[in-house]
């Protein structure tokens, strides 16, 4: 069972509110102070891939399209247990999904792949497009938002998450591509020493050219005009004081507002 997992690196904008700034170009954010990390959804994809490798044997290859700094994320994938990692050296921040998809399809097409896994979406842009696009380009079946997976005899039995807790059940013939939703597993903690050890593992870098793609393959069909900071909410009225009095105040407020 050879599994390819596509991962990406994202700036950590989740924790604090007012840390994001737009840069001079107006088309990107100030990345200076931001810390990068592996995309949350991709952790689940990797964990799922590694668990199936553990059960069925085979290999797990982590791939990405991105700049040199993204090797950190590939190293993390290797530390989690991936066997090898490949980065296509392009600045993913300026290309659109279809371009990224085209590149990844070209790469994955050259790799042995019984299963291809993507995170269901990315934390930064949240397009949730890449996986199914790549599947369509590779001409293999896909299922998005997979919350349960069972692999046996060349088939993948999956459950797709629908709104409100319902699920669609599919059987896909391998090779197939799945986009993985959070909650499908509990991604393992990656210890610092395992990251160190992962330095010995193979991490190769490829160019568009090596993939036989012309530069115009990257021309975006969707063009970013500009970025704007989202207008912040008006902000809550904070009720201060110890648990006892704060709770009492809130109870009164709720009563006066007639919500109870």
């Amino acid at each position, binding site marked *: 069972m050879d599994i390819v997992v596509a991962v990406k690196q994202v700036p950590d904008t989740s924790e604090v509110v007012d840390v994001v700034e737009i840069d001079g170009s107006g088309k990107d954010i100030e990345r200076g102070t931001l810390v990068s990390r592996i995309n949350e959804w991709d952790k689940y994809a990797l964990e799922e891939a590694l668990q199936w490798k553990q059960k069925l044997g085979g290999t797990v290859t982590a791939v990405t399209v991105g700049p040199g700094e993204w090797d950190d994320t590939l190293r993390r994938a290797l530390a989690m247990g991936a066997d090898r990692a490949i980065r296509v050296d392009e600045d993913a921040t300026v290309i659109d*999904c279809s371009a990224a998809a085209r590149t990844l399809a070209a790469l994955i097409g050259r790799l042995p792949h019984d299963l291809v896994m993507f995170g269901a979406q990315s934390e930064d842009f949240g397009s949730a497009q890449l996986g199914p696009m790549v599947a369509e380009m590779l001409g293999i079946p896909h299922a998005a938002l997979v919350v349960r997976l069972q692999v046996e005899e060349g088939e993948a039995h999956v459950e797709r998450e629908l709104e409100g807790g319902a699920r669609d059940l599919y059987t896909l013939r391998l090779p197939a591509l799945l986009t993985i939703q959070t909650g499908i597993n509990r991604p393992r903690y990656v210890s610092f020493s395992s990251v160190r050890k992962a330095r010995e593992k193979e991490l190769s870098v490829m160019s568009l050219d090596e993939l036989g793609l012309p530069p115009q393959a990257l021309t975006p069909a969707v063009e970013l005009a500009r970025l704007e900071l989202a207008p912040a909410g008006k902000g809550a009225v904070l009720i201060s004081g110890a648990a006892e009095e704060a709770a009492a105040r809130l109870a009164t407020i709720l009563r006066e507002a007639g919500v109870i």
Partner: protein
Amino acid sequence: MAEILVVAEHRDGKPADVSLEMLSTGRRLADQAGCGLLAVVVTSDVSAFAPRLARWADSVLAVKTGKPEHSLAEPYQKALASVIRERKPNLVLLGHSSFAMDLAPALAVDVGAPLATDCTNIAMENGAITVTRSIYNGKVNALYSFAPCETVILTGRPGVFPVEEGRGKGIVEEIDLPVHEEAEYKRFEGCSEPEASEVDITKADVLVAVGRGVKEKGNLQLAEDLARALGGVLACSRPVVDYGWLPSGHQVGLSGKTVRPRLYLALGISGAFQHMVGLRGSKMIVAINKDEKAPIFTDADYGIVGDVLEIVPVLTKHILEPRR
């Protein structure tokens, strides 16, 4: 000919809310641009609701299919691809739903159209389409335009686009297209509904929503007691479902449900946009969270900075027996 196509998604014999939102939006854009609005639905029971779609759409293409009763990507992709190739609409609109996340990207590749997903605003000025997307955890809005092309495919964020009841009387045209809902490489095996016992949080007047901040499953009891005191229902954010503390039916947000209660009481929820989009419609939002920097405090009406586990029991007490 200029045309806007809306893909109508349906479940349990009803069009999805988000599809109605897209139909209203499509109608608005079509009226501005003075072009036609076409709705496409693939269904086993055309009579069920195709006529309803016609209140917005000038014409409804109903593609007859056998099972299943609800929308699946495979048959839709084939039907839509041929409709799009034939009619070349300028714009194809879908709701940013689980269904569309499976369908839209593949369809875009299939028909070679640019795709922008999860749009929060869609504008059309003399043919040129621009959209807004909310990125970086809702902290940044990105404005996009498109290279000249025949068709642009967009999906719109649920709960963001207003629904205005359609008044029109479009025609419903039942067409027969080669729809193989059974591809041998991808079999639909059925659908699992959430446990029937579960309450529908979208109907609840008061929601007490728990997040990571409740620390452990055992503490859900506190929230449940409060919910009972308020005559409300328990809801939650994604991690709570991921940790297996509550069934996914309780989840509010992008991948959960969109709710519009009178009171939304968020306990230990940081307020990532994936969650917040699900409760924008709430009349009143109250947040209790240890971290005063939690984004939820920007959207909430009232907030208490403190330990949920300490405050909630006291609050329950005060709800049950008001101080004289």
